[in-house]
Each structure stands twice: as C-alpha cells, then as structure tokens.
C-alpha cells in the first residue's frame, strides 16, 4: 500500500500566489473601488470569497477518487458547450465592452470559457488514453471539439481565450503523440483563418500594429500598453513600494484584472516580478513532474494538460503586459481579480494535487531526470 501524500511544494506555491493575488487585487483596485463603490475593499472582498471557495473546493478535490473525475469527461464537454452557448442568450448573457463573455443571474456571474479549457483537457486526457493518437483518425475528435470550443469563444468575441484554447489543443495533441506532419496539416486552416479574421474585424489589425509602436495612437489602441509600460517602467529594480502604485489611479485600465501584473511590477520592481515568475515556474514544473512520474497515460495527460493551461495563460498574460505580443484581455491565473477564474484554477490544482498523491513517493527524483 502506497501512502498517499500530496505535493506540498505545489500546494504552497499555489497558496502563495493566491495570497499575493489578494494583496495586489486590493492594491490595484482600492482607489477605483472607493470611487465607484464607495468601498475600497469591494474587489478584495469578492476575491476573498472566490479564494475561500476555491481553496475549500481544491482541498475537497484532493480527497475524491480520480476515477470519479475521469467519469466526468463527456459531461464536462457537454456542460461547457451549453454554457458557451448560453453566453449568447439574452437575459443570461452579460455584455461588456462590446463582447459577450459572461453569463450571470442575480449577483452571480461567470465566464464559461474558464471551465471549457479544463473540460477540454479532461476530455482529451481520457480519450487519448483510450486510443492511439498517433493515428490520425483518433485525433479527429479532439480536434473537432477543440474547433467547436474555439469557434464559440471567438464568436463572443474573445481573441485571447481562443488563442489560449487553440494552443491548448495543439499541446494536448502533441502530448498524445500526434505525428508532426499532421500538425503541419492543421497549420494550413489556421494560416488561412488569420487574414479572414483581420478582414472581418479590422480593429484586430490595428491592435496588432499598436503593440509595435503604442505611441502612434496613445489615446486609442496604444493606450493600454503605454499605461502598462509606464507602470512597469516606474518599478525599476525594487519597485515604488507596496500600495504605492501611481498608475492604478485610473490611468491603467483593468489594473486589478488583466493588468494586475503591471501593478505588481510597479510596486515591487524587477525582483518582485522575478519572484512571481519563479512561483509560476514552480507550479508548472511540479505539474509536469507529476505528469512525468504518473503511473498511467490518463494521469500523465491530465497533469500535463493542467500544467499547460497555467503555463499558456500566464505566459500570454506576461507577454501582453510587457508589450511582447498584441494586447488582449486575459486574466493572470490565481492573481487577477475574477471569482470564476480563481475557483476553476484552484479546482484544477486540486486535481493536480490529487494526481500527485498517486505517484510513488520513493522513486521520484532520479526518474524525473532520466525519463
């Protein structure tokens, strides 16, 4: 009998990220929250509720049988599709900045795409563990579902999550062992889709160009990026000090959500950013370690996929905030303000921790490096 023991390093890193998230959501939002809601703790409280629910769910998930989770593979995809469709249903849909990304009733609201990402990972992990993904015909279903998800998300429209979803699809198929030549085949429709999308929605091209020289349109496309750069640039080596961000005084849009990392950079400087990077790398590396050390294909794919979601989304967020890619709205996992995102990511971490407990504790280390 193997003694079950969850990965404490991973758990610690996640908890530190969540706590830092609470601190910086508060710091970034205190001014605008006071102005808008008359309560500077407004966003902090909501985030705190998300964190508590998330942590409870995470701990519960570490306890349940992994076979139960496995059984949810089809239900997950089905629920995701339903939720993604509900985004377009008037009455349930919530429109923000010209995009329908949220559903909600009463004071509760959520972003279905957050769930869809993990549902897709679970589906692929189960499906690919049952079939031989090296054969093209077994790749078709994961590709098809991936395309359906991407299509629904891009219709919201939400370019960033679509990108995230597409990358996830490629990573899952790659993990599953799909042959290189098939990847090249997949690239053809993507290469064709880009000009079509640009033609259909010209603002995307403008956004695309804005990141190259944000000062060309400082009041329009370039505005967000300029403000983010101002924040980061103000940070220097050690930052201006906790709670001292100047850019959060409404200069930086979405300071508590998509651009929370700019505030972190401003208040804690390059060293603070390095610390955050290290925490994410710990989460990703421990996740991959669980995958590598796992006893079966399903666990390997699931752990790898969950790690991939964290890696893809955090890297995309950092790239946007630093102006390395065209600006697009994407929350930073664990840190950005947003209850759904936090609960979903913490649940996923619960799954990862659950998988970590099934790993033989005694043959780690060596195997990690030689595998």
């Amino acid at each position, binding site marked *: 009998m193997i003694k079950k023991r969850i990965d404490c390093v991973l758990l610690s890193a996640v908890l530190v990220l969540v706590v830092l998230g609470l601190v910086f959501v508060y710091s970034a939002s205190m001014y605008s929250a006071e102005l808008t809601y008359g309560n500077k703790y407004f966003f902090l409280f909501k985030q705190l509720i998300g964190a508590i629910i998330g942590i409870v769910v995470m701990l519960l998930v570490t306890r349940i049988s992994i076979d139960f989770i496995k059984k949810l593979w089809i239900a997950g995809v089905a629920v995701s599709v339903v939720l993604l469709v509900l985004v377009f249903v008037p009455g349930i849909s919530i429109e923000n900045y010209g995009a329908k990304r949220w559903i909600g009733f009463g004071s509760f609201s959520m972003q279905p795409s957050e769930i869809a990402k993990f549902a897709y990972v679970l589906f692929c992990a189960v499906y690919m563990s049952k079939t031989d993904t090296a054969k093209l015909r077994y790749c078709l279903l994961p590709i098809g579902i991936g395309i359906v998800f991407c299509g629904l998300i891009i219709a919201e429209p939400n370019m960033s999550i679509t990108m995230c979803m597409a990358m996830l699809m490629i990573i899952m198929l790659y993990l599953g062992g799909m042959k290189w030549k098939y990847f090249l085949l997949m690239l053809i429709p993507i290469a064709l889709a880009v000009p079509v999308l640009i033609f259909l929605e010209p603002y995307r091209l403008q956004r695309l160009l804005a990141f190259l020289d944000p000062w060309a349109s400082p009041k329009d496309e370039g505005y967000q990026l300029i403000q983010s750069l101002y924040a*980061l640039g103000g940070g220097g080596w050690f930052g201006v000090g906790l709670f001292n961000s100047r*850019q959060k005084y409404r200069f930086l849009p979405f300071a508590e959500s998509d651009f929370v990392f700019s505030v972190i950079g401003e208040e804690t400087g390059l060293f603070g950013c390095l610390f955050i990077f290290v925490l994410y790398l710990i989460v990703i590396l421990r996740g991959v370690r669980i995958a590598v050390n796992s006893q079966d294909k399903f666990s390997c794919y699931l752990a790898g996929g969950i790690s991939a979601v964290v890696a893809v989304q955090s890297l995309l967020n950092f790239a946007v905030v630093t102006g390395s890619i065209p600006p697009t709205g994407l929350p930073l996992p664990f840190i950005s303000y947003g209850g759904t995102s936090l609960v979903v990511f913490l649940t996923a971490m619960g799954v990862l921790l659950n998988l970590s407990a099934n790993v033989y504790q005694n043959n780690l280390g060596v195997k990690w490096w030689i595998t």
Partner: protein
Amino acid sequence: MQHDYYTSKKRLLTLIVAAIFLFLVIFLRLAYIQVIWGKELQAKAGNQWQRDLPIKAYRGDITDTNGNLIATTETGYGVYARPKSVVDAESCAKALAEILDMDYAKLLEKLTKKGVSEVTIKRQIDSAQASEIRSRNLHGVYLAAEGLRSYVYGDFLSQVLGFVSYDGVGQTGLEAYYDKYLQGINGELLTETDLVGSELADGSMSYVPAINGLTVTLTIDAVIQTIVENVLQLAMYQQKPQAARCIVLDVTTGEILAMASKPSVDLNNLPRDNLEYLMKYSKNTLLTDVYEPGSTFKVLTAAACLEEYRRGNPKAFSAEHIFGNSSGIRIIDGSKISCWTKHANGKHSNQNLSDALNNSCNPIFTDIALSLGKSTMYEYLDKFGYGSVTGIDFSGEQAGILVPKTSVTNGDLARIGFGQTIAVTALQLCMATASAVNGGLLMQPYLVKEISDPTTGKVVKRFSPTVVNRTVSAETSAQIASMLKRVVDEGGGKNAKIEGYQVGGKTGTAQKFVDGALATGKYVSSFIGFFPASSPKYLALMIVDEPEGQSYGSIVAAPYAALVFQEIINYKNISPLE
C-alpha cells in the same frame, strides 16, 4: 502503447524546456522595460500624473518720469472648473450664478460639459467675488489669481500706453512695445491627480512661484500730460474739431513729456465690443499718421537758407537780405502759387527772412527753395529726419511721404518750401523743429527712460538721450530761435505770447487731402512753439484737425499752446527771464 506513453513524457520535457525559455525571454524583456527603459518611461508617465495650474506673473507697473503710478495690476481672479471633479453641478451652478451674476443654464452646461478637463467660468473677477466663491467651498471649482490691469487715470495717455488682452498680453502702444519686460515669468502649481484630473487625497503639491514683471518708467510727466489733456479737451469744446493733438517734449534730450490725442478711449473701460471705434481712437496718430504740415514747415526752409549762407553757398541768402520781388504770386512752370493774403497796400514788401517768417509769406519761401535747388533742399530734408522714422520706442511709426528726388519738379520744390507737397508725422515735425532751435542737434525721441526691478529697485535698463545727427550750426540755430521769437512777439504767433518767457513759434494752416484731392474748407490748423527762445527747453506742437469756423493756426492753435506753456511755467515755477 508503452512506446507512445514514453513519447508523451519526452514531449512533456520538450514543452517544459519551451516554457522555461519563454519565461526567460519575457523576463529579459521585463528587465529591459523596468531597468533600462524605466527612466524614460517614468519621465513620460510623470507628465500625466500632474495637472498644472498656471500662476500668472504680476504685470509690471508703468510710472511717469517722477515715479507716479500710471498703470498697475490689481489682484483679480479667474474662475475655472473641472467638470469631472464637480460633485453637485446644479447647486454649484446656482451658487456661481448668484455670485457672478451669470446665467444659470449656461453655467450648468459648462459644469457638466463632457470630454474637457477644464472649463473657464469667468475671467477677471474681483477679490470680493473670489472670497465669496471660496467660502462656498464648491468642489471642482478653482480660482486662479490673475492680474487685472488697471490705469490710475483711465482716459489718459491712452494712445501711448495702449492696452492689454484679457490674458494680460500687451496689444498696442507701450504695453505691447515693452511687453517682454512688463510680462514677467509665470509660475505654476502642480497637483497630483488621477486620470481624469481628480486630486489625490494624499498627493503632493509643488509650487513654482511667478516672477513679477519689471517697472517701466516713462519720460512722460503726468502733470504736463494732464495739462495737455485738459487743454486739448478745451480745444475740442471750443473749436469742435475732428480731433486735437499735442506733443510736448524736451528739445535738449528728445524726451517726450506729453503726448495726447482727443478723442480717446478710457483704458479702464475699453469699448472692446466696438472694434472700429477702439482701433480708431486708440491709435497714436501723432506718429502713425501723416499730414501736410503747411507753414510750420517754413522753419526748415529758413534754417537751410541761413546754414547754407553761413557755409558760403552763393545761392543762399543772408538774414539781412531783402527779397526784392514783393508780388504775392509766383508762376512756376506755368502753375500759380499765391501767398495766403493779397499783397496790396505795401503788405509783405521789402521783407528779409525774419519778416517773411513773421508774415508767413509763401512766395519768399518758394524763392528760397528754388534758389537752393533740389539737391540742397533734399539734403536738408534728410538731415532733419524727413523721409525716415524718428526711431521712437513705439511700434507703427511712419516715415512720411516725400516726392522722390528723381521725379520732383520745380513746382513741387517750390511748394515743399512752405510745407506743401510733403506729408510728415507730427513727431517728425517736432523733432526737426527742435533741432532747428536747440543748437542744431536732431535728437531721437523716446518715451521710456528706465526699466527697473520693483523688488530690488535696481535699474535693469536705462535709456539716455541719443543724437541722430547735426542739422545746422549752433549759430544758425540761435538765429532761427530768435526769428521765431519775433514771430510770436510781433507776427502770426502773437496769440502764443507769454510776457517775460521768450516764447518762439510758427503757425501753420494746411488744407486737408481727402481721398487724394484737396478738400475745400477742411484744414489742419497748427502751431509749433517753444520757450525760452534764448535757451530752448520745452517745445509743443498743437494740432487742431478740422476746426469749425476759423481755421488759421494763429487763432485756432496758438492760444492753446500758450495755455500749455503757461501751465508748465506754473508747474515748474519758472521765473520770467526779462
């Protein structure tokens, strides 16, 4: 199966290497932004973090030659609002409407205006209104101290001083000419704000004080100016002319002591909404407009004649020369030139130069001008400063109109001899006449003698008398002065005589040109005088433009010059010489 699973694990490692690589790339980018680019970004960001409220520098004072205040700046306020910071626009508009006596609806519109960071509510309100606004504690409404230009005497020296815009920038006159000295350097109040300009509760403020403008001291003597303004007002009342103008200056230095035109404008209450009226009566016509001087110009011809005689020019006449032709008419190249009066019953016969000046006899000056010839006459016109600006410290000065030397006819030359076919500014005539009697020096006229720092009292710039050139010898000048004294003692200038003070002078009456043709019945009557003739100091040119009724300078202008002189004598307490 096992093989594929192994592939997956290998691929996982590939992915993790890729992820670490991407983290590294982004970290390097971050390091570049934060550490290398940071300074530049911070500087740019700094601009958007602060809003600056300009602090207007105090506009410098203008004083008369004795330091008496003429123009100053009082504390006024500008009221501004930042619509996004205004909390209760309706009650705010109500309060402002009540205090400033403005329209409530318009105020409300301004206070709720979208897309602007700041709106101007009202400029130049006084301290009482400002403190009332302050006491209401209206959120989002700001007061900025700004100068309220104010003139001690209002309608006084108006065309010379000029006026300023609402923003306190000199527009005309000395206010414009010396603007860079009067202006000062604005300061600013920097406050930390959020994106839309709301002040931060714990934000810092920095204050850059304004540097006050300098004090400009004029050559104008406020007392003499007042005398002149009053006398002109009297002339306006008695002669009902279009305008009356006068310059008083010190012939030894070129300092302008008084310079006035009527009608004029009240600088404290400018008719800014009647632009045509404003421009017409705020213009310093004494140096921006030209006129035909008429007989006052004979001084130049006489001076040229005597100076040339002294130099041995055979075509010139001595002071003792008796002019033989006593006819009142000359026919020059077929055109007839007449004296102003009929030469009958021995009138204007056997005159010498002094007699001719006394009688203001046109034919004699025609003879002199023709005898001296074109090049000598033009040489003297040039020496006396005709055809070029005097160089006074004032914008918009005219150089006058001379018939070009190459195309001047004998007829023109004959008329120039007694002040026709030539257009001059009043200032040019003054300076030329001054040089004829002051010992022969053409001085550059000036209005400002000093610019000083009001806080330290230190003189920053001092202007001293400048000689432009020598016109005639001291001896000729003395001769002219005594001849002109005789004109006032016994001739056409009798009305300017003040017993015991040796007043000299010459009258002038010229027909006006309207639309390029001589206008019948429209005259410019003038008198140019000075005293004391033995050592001239004060010179005055009195011009009465289109008087009603009488038009002779001797009757319409000379008495007013005498009044000015008498008042100056009283003011300066000058004892009689004889």
